[in-house]
């Protein structure tokens, strides 16, 4: 609907008279009543955020939770301090960088392995017959269950954390690139056949571009999985990273550190997912809606 309106507006700017009429009917204003003001979505957004912060403040200040909840203000002050002070030798930026680096390495490694493999599996029944059953054995195993064995294998250094991220992101990447190719409408292949294309043309001109949106959906899922994995790995054993911040807060009973860490995680995770969708928009501007895949 929003897209339609944009189109209509775009036409309007060009000065087409029919579009102007359409725009007028679309943009008809409803009368401004109190009921409409009160139920305005943006106003409600503001109300709800303010209510949330107030409730949080009250709950923390009233001492109902004891020391187990810091007020929003305390959290803010704590983090202003951490911008310049260090925690275990790193400022907050250092910790963010440590986590982001792990995610980036694991994410790139996993997608570089999983996406081509998924495409191969979808395009070649023999590859599929060999890889799929083994993959199906590993699929239902939560990546976090691998933490223990990765520590046994790689110790508690960087490799074990990157291994966990690779494991966690591998599954959605592979599944989505596999399904992305398999769910392509056969009509598209027929077009290539009618135009006299070879199997190779089918793969390059249909399979790859048509599976892009699904692959990117997989990357988004992978990314949130990667955050879960890196946090879990850092919670279990690490000396840097955002997971370390919150587990440190838990150990020294510093709630403002824990909550602040969670907020930073939310912000950084959100930014990273924005980056992926930005990449998606540049790489496949024709993106279709594939909800329900």
């Amino acid at each position, binding site marked *: 609907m929003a897209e339609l309106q944009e189109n209509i507006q775009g036409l309007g700017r060009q000065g087409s008279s029919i579009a102007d009429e359409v725009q007028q009917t679309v943009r008809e204003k409803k009368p401004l009543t109190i009921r409409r003001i009160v139920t305005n979505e943006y106003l*409600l957004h503001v109300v709800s955020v303010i209510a949330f912060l107030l409730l949080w403040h009250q709950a923390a200040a009233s001492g109902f939770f004891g020391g187990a909840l810091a007020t929003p203000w305390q959290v803010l002050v704590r983090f202003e301090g951490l911008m310049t002070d260090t925690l275990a030798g790193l400022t907050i930026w250092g910790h963010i960088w440590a986590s982001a680096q792990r995610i980036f390495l694991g994410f790139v490694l996993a997608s570089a392995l999983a996406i081509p493999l998924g495409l191969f599996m979808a395009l070649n029944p023999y590859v599929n017959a*060999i890889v799929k*059953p083994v993959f199906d054995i590993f699929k239902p*195993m*939560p*990546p976090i269950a691998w933490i223990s064995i990765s*520590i046994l294998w790689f110790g508690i250094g960087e490799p074990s954390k990157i291994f966990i991220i690779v494991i966690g992101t591998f599954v959605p990447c592979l599944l989505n690139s596999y399904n992305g190719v398999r769910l392509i409408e056969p009509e598209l292949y027929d077009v290539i056949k009618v135009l006299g294309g070879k199997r190779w043309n089918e793969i390059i001109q249909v399979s790859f571009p048509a599976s892009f949106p699904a692959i990117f959906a997989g990357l988004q899922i992978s990314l949130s999985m990667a955050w879960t994995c890196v946090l879990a790995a850092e919670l279990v054993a690490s000396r840097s990273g955002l997971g370390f911040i919150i587990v440190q807060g*838990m150990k020294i009973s510093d709630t403002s550190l824990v909550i602040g860490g*969670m907020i930073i995680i939310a912000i950084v*995770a959100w930014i990273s997912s924005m980056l992926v969708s930005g990449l998606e928009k540049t790489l496949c501007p024709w993106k279709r809606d594939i909800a329900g895949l």
Partner: protein
Amino acid sequence: MAYEEVKVKKPLSLILLPILSVLTFFAAWELVVQLDIVPKTMLAAPTQVGDLFVAKLTDPNPDGATIFMHAWVSAREAFLGYLLALGIGLPLGLFMGWFSVVRGLARPIFELIRPIPPIAWIPLTVFWFGIGLWGKVFIIWLGGVVPCVINAFVGVRMTNPTLIQMARTYGATDWQIFKTLCVPSALPMVFGALQIALACAWTNLVGAELLAADQGLGYLITMGRRLALPDMVVLGMVAVGLAGAAIGVLIDYVERRLLAGIRR
């Protein structure tokens, strides 16, 4: 039936290859350990894991519970968290999809909480609930409620607008439209949410138990690491994987039965 099923004959090699590949996988795993290519302190052979499984059926040592007690504790936590997530997440998502007041109020809070991985709540949960049952239920609930809300929300938003306009023309109230149009048309998405939430619940359960637990399958894995018993770690992983797969199949079956008439 309106159409006849076309049976495509699979080449024999495509039937045999999957079996061969699984067999090769397990054989390679067994050999790698038995021939000491990978040290025994790092990986246990499938046969060792099998032996330990048989032993753990009755023997609570060295981690304090038999495998079924661990599985039962984990299943109870996962189930409670999952049910709570469905009970709260689905109605919230459905209401958010149709009623703009609910959407306006709930959306910012939801968007604030959504990007935080449930694992990150563990420290706070330990402060609030301790390491008992409810802490883990809370973590699982957090993990499960997000996909429930999103899917139910999207499901309602995807309702065919023509149907809504038609209902309005016939004078249906908001509530009637919600009840008779939006909810049924959101059902396939809701069932998608059941699957996703379950997978989330299972992942987060293991995470929660890694950090704060004294029983459960995740705890079994952690103890295996602490005691440097790779067979116990692998047993825990296999148990978690098998249980997850079993529940997945179950939900798939229920979904197919319930949604038999709905076109996807």
